[in-house]
């Protein structure tokens, strides 16, 4: 990972849903080619950070820069066009659409032939190809996660945001998800992950950030954080 360009930089981000602020000045960055993890207790604002980066929630202060474009307060469809994709924490697929239709929706903004992208997704998740005519709502949890990630990969994004990609999955599936994330990264996509499963996530990450009540608490290289005693005690269950 010799590349040093920052693909995403978030500076002093402040935001919230009501009058109350949830994020009180978060700063993070991702360099091109990196996997970066964000960990922190429930309600610390991890998902809120993701939503704000992607333009679903308006920032009240701070700045977000993606590939030299100021995307502070920019709407999701414009963010998508710049080359960022997002797999939300919940409801990450269209249940009444088939797998194929889910993937097609991921490429909605493209008007040309998308079969190259489809083949690429099927190569990563072969199970999706066989079942492509099946409604996503009737798939298993692991398959639904694949559909969600596959949809987000349809435009070959430069940066992929994943909000708790392993949550609620059986251990085998969880392993599969982390392996696929590493594989997607090796193929050239930078990745920002929010995870409860901090050990696994930091294990595949170049760097990580620890948030607490909407503020940066720790940051460092993945391995460093795994060995940090405070982080261990607070978030990794000792």
């Amino acid at each position, binding site marked *: 990972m010799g590349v040093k360009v920052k693909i995403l930089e978030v500076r002093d981000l402040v935001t919230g849903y009501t009058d109350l602020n949830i994020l009180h000045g978060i700063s993070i960055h991702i360099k091109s080619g990196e996997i970066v993890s964000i960990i922190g207790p429930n309600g610390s604002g991890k998902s809120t950070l993701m939503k704000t980066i992607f333009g679903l929630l308006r920032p009240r202060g701070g700045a977000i820069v993606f590939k030299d474009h100021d995307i502070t307060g920019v709407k999701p469809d414009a963010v998508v066009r710049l080359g960022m994709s997002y797999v939300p924490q919940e409801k990450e697929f269209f249940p009444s659409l088939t797998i194929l239709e889910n993937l097609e929706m991921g490429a*909605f903004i493209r008007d040309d032939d998308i079969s190259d992208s489809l083949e690429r997704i099927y190569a990563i998740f072969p199970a999706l190809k066989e079942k492509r005519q099946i409604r996503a709502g009737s798939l298993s949890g692991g398959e639904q996660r694949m559909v969600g990630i596959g*949809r987000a990969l349809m435009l070959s994004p430069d940066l992929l945001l994943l909000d708790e990609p392993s949550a609620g999955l059986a251990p085998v599936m969880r392993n599969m998800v982390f392996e696929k994330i590493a594989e997607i990264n090796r193929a050239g996509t930078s990745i920002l992950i929010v995870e409860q499963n901090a050990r696994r996530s930091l294990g595949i990450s170049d760097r990580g950030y620890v948030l607490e009540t909407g503020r940066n608490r720790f940051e460092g290289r993945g391995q460093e954080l795994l060995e940090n005693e405070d982080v261990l005690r607070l978030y990794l269950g000792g």
Partner: protein
Amino acid sequence: MQLVINGLVIGSIIAITAIGLSMIYKTLNFVNFAHGDFVAFAAYIALFANASLGMHLASAFLVAILATIVLGIFMEKVVWHPMRRKNASRTTLIIISIGLALVLRNTLIFIWGGSTRNYNIPVRRGFEFFGATIAPNQVLVIISAFILVFALHCLLSRTKIGKSIRALSDNIDLARISGIDVDRVILWTWVIGLGLAAAGGVLYGLVTAIRPDMGWYLLLPMFAAVILGGIGNPYGTIAGGIVIGLSQELSTAILPTEYKFAVSFVVMTLVLLLKPEGIFGGAK
């Protein structure tokens, strides 16, 4: 047999008119109480084009659908879209739709009066079919409804815009995240939902007298069909509409006709109590 035929006729009208109600309910998360009055509006436009302008009913049918869609687009642009931008609550939207329903209905009364009207078409004799008399208009209604449902199916399952309409009603946030132009797809949802409602309204005028409140009274059966079919599930709504139409008509065999409309209410309540996600909508 007669009751089954009548039930199928009214059922197909409920089915195609209710689809729009269902899609808008699921996508925008509110019940459009004006939906029935759009149905009546379409019947009156067709009546005007046919009886006053002397157009053939087939052209009047198209004119009515077009006019209803234009009115629907206008409402989306000046009312619904601005309201969404202001994050109006669901209650606000419902109250606005009730207001709109009243305005529409009273406009119809103001222009055409409150009395019942009929299209200016030749009266043709019905034919016998297993002991029942079927009017040609009834056949026309069932065939048209069938064609419309088939066209809708092709649109929803084959075209990009159709798939995105379904995607929006599934998960509007994910649609936005995927880069789908949500406002444009919502506009299409109105166009298709109200286009079908208008078609249903014109067809309804073939088998019943045209009155300003014809759509308002259709709202309860439509709503029952929506609930029965699972909110936002167009195919479920179609099945629900047929079931409601049939049960309404068949109930007249044992109950006084006045109780017809109570049937949809009873069916709807039972479904809500026993299987709230709808009989045909469970596969989520």
